[in-house]
């Protein structure tokens, strides 16, 4: 028997173990997953419905005002307004709203988890070291691989799409927050200490404000990564701009493919311009 044959015959059960783990989790935690599926799905779909109930033009005006309020730039407000009108014109308004609500939910979740975790990593190098390979894995493991267990656990619909999106996007805010906090100049922290700041005061009054541009960059990245997942989210049954892309792919429709593609890019540009940190803007 050739050695490689022997090696091949004694296969280490990597895949089998993972499958068994998923199986156990499914059997014993089914209630939990159902609750998550129902509640998150309810909220996300609820938000989509709410957005769709409002008159589109009212939302366009609101988005324009919001963009101006955040950035004080007439050009940007005009870009947002024209972009949204173009989306209405192309007939992708409903899909855009579904995608927006999916992005909103996954981004809020990613930031809520990512920022505190990033802070913890910056303060505890050991934790950062331990987390590093996991974060690498989350960003490099092909999405379709973890799509399979997500489907088993959460079924088809918005929630598995959102979970894949989160797994892919959450490392960005964790890393950016960690980097931002770790780069706060030692002298500023010492200034805080010298005036008697507590650990919490140093975090809130020095570290977080100093790291804010980085955290904001993490937010922008997180949104962009979420947006890049819309097609995959559509594959597992989440609504949104991915759906027409998948449909166009299946029916080989060049025009529909480009239309929805443009709308995704347009949405990305608008979100990026509104959310990116101020210093690197313009």
């Amino acid at each position: 028997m050739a050695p490689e044959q022997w090696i091949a015959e004694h296969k280490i059960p990597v895949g089998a173990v993972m499958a068994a783990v998923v199986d156990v989790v499914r059997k014993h935690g089914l209630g939990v997953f159902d609750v998550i599926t129902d509640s998150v799905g309810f909220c996300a779909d609820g938000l989509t419905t709410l957005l769709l109930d409002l008159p589109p033009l009212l939302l366009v005006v609101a988005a324009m005002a919001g963009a101006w309020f955040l950035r004080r730039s007439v050009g940007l407000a005009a870009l947002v307004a024209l972009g949204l009108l173009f989306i209405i014109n192309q007939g992708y308004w409903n899909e855009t709203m579904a995608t927006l609500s999916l992005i909103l939910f996954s981004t809020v979740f990613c930031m809520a988890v990512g920022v505190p975790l990033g802070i913890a990593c910056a303060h505890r190098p050991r934790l950062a070291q331990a987390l590093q390979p996991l974060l690498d894995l989350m960003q490099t493991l092909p999405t379709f691989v973890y799509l399979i267990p997500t489907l088993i656990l959460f079924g088809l619909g918005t929630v598995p799409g959102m979970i894949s999106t989160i797994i892919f996007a959450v490392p960005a805010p964790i890393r950016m927050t960690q980097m931002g906090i770790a780069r706060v100049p030692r002298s500023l922290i010492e200034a805080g200490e010298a005036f008697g700041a507590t650990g919490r005061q140093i975090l809130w009054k020095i570290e977080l404000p100093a790291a804010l541009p980085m955290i904001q960059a993490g937010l922008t990245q997180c949104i962009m990564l979420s947006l890049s997942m819309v097609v995959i989210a559509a594959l597992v049954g989440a609504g949104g701009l991915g759906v027409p892309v998948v449909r166009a792919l299946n029916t080989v429709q060049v025009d529909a493919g480009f239309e929805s593609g443009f709308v995704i890019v347009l949405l990305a540009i608008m979100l990026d311009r509104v959310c990116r940190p101020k210093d690197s803007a313009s």
Partner: protein
Amino acid sequence: MSEGINAALEFRNVDILFDRGNRRGAIEAALARLDAGETREEIGRALKVTVGVAGANLAVARGEISVLMGLSGSGKSTLLRAANRLNRPIRGEVRIGNGLAWLDIARCDDDTLRTLRKTRIAMVFQQFGLLPWRTVRDNVGFGLELRGMAPSIRRDIVAEKLELVGLANWADAHVHELSGGMQQRVGLARAFATDADILLMDEPFSALDPLIRRKLQDELLDLQKRLKKTILFVSHDIDEALKIGSRITIMREGRIVQTGTPDDIALRPVDDYVAEFIRHMNPLPTIVAAAVMRRFQDLPRRPDGMLDGGRIAIAPDAATATIADRALAIRPHGAWTQGALCVVPAQLSLGEIIALRQRSGLPVLVEVEGRLVGLCDDADILQALCGEARFRAG
């Protein structure tokens, strides 16, 4: 404990070591070697432990400016930062007096430490250490904010301190809109705002250009006359130290080699290391008229009974003076006019004497408590510049 009444801050046998290798027991081993008299190099090489400060004893009296000097790496910052425990001494005490009792800041609990930092000890940093996203006002109010003081009360105090440092019109500016000198004034105002009585200043003016540096030194001296803080000041500039220090401490390789008044340091350096600092000082602002002048009592007499001051002759009672038999008017410094002899106080600096000599073309007379006691002419000034007078200074 009555000893707390004079000194506000006292270092007692302070050793500060930095462990670079994180090897267990390295610090203890280093202390043992330090006690056995090994040098900083030997300990550093053998154990990967840096001796920042060793065996430092220093008392800073209430209301004085005590300057730490030394070459780069001599441990000035390390010692200064032990005063608010940014560096924690491995051994020894750092005592803060409140007039009644001592508190050892090196060993007190965290709450006490924070209270001391909030109320007793403030710090001014070389690179200013201002928070760039805050306005000048919010930077100055930072210490008060940490105490939890209400914004309305804070505002008044901040306005007062900004007035003090001459930045009242800049309260709403952001830090980056200010020049370096103005930024350090913000740093000063922030330190004053907490009403701490002890001020730690680590080369606060080193990042500024020489003109602004001198201006801020003058302002600090001016403020100190009114505020009477206890100041520990790190400098690597002997002129700055002589100018603002009421006491100067020279450090070398983590140890204090001499502590004394500027005169002690300038006139009685304990070794070549200290003398080397003095050799490089700028005589113009440091040497005073009293050290430059020839005293009337040392002048020879001319046949006609007048005192012989070279080109100038002076009556024994110093009431009149003549040059080439022409009588000259004698005027005090403030009321001097061209053609008259100028009378200056004994504490006037050599630089100003030279300026007066240059403008009048005449020797300068020196008075002590309203009595004329000596004169400075070209020969005296040159001699002072050559260093002859230096060791008569003070």
